[in-house]
């Protein structure tokens, strides 16, 4: 793996953490949504991360030196899955989406959980930015050998 490959690995994580933060904010925004195009209340969503094999370009670049192995894989979002938890039912007969008994099905979203997840995503993002900064400085130093 060359130094630029390092940046590619960290960049994949930046993208993945950003998707995670987007999904969490979407959960928070829709914490009270009782109507969705699919019908019923909004379902909480979660991202699933998986490791990513090095890209073709990266493998080609290091074809001369067999330095790639299982140790250097980026991350990618494998999918966004719905949380199967049942909706929270609250008694509110005046609500337009209340059923015959006056109960409304709200999304099962705990704002505290979502905020903790958002902070986790922000911290992981920060950490990957540090890794990119380190890689940038190392490249810069390698260039300075030439001076």
């Amino acid at each position, binding site marked *: 793996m060359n130094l630029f490959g390092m940046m590619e*690995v960290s960049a994949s994580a930046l993208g993945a953490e950003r998707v995670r933060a987007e999904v969490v904010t979407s959960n928070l925004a829709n914490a009270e949504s009782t109507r969705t195009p699919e019908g019923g209340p909004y379902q909480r969503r979660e991202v699933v991360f998986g490791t990513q094999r090095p890209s073709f370009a990266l493998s080609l670049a290091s074809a001369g030196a067999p330095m790639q192995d299982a140790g*250097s894989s980026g991350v990618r979002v494998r999918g966004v899955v719905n949380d199967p938890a049942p909706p929270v039912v609250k008694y509110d007969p005046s609500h337009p989406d209340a059923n015959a008994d006056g109960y409304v099905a709200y999304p099962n979203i705990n704002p505290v959980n979502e905020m903790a997840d958002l902070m986790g995503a922000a911290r992981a993002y920060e950490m990957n930015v540090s890794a990119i900064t380190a890689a940038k400085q190392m490249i810069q130093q390698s260039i300075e*050998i030439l001076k």
Partner: protein
Amino acid sequence: MSLVDTPLMKSLASYLDVTAYRQGVVSANIANIDTPGYHARDINFKQELDKALGSPDAPLTPRTQGVPGLQERPDGNTVSLDREGLLLAQTQLQFTTGVALLRSELKRVSMAIQEDKGS
């Protein structure tokens, strides 16, 4: 052995290669900090450096291995942010040291060339 390509330079080049490789492994660990089932990986720095110093012209083929003794989280991930953050800083400083030594060695050779001009 030639004058401009000293053994120390070759050793430093191997050192920089191994350090940069390790930094790549650490980056991959940090990238996968939230990937379920991912196990932190690392290289045996001493062993890989010995190997690289033993045959400086051969391509670097480090072997990564799982890191023992790490706490596994409920999702099966063993990446520790503290460990990786520390390694990131440490490896970067090692690389900086290697670059500084390489530059001073080049300066030494350059100085030898300059001195020769005077006589």
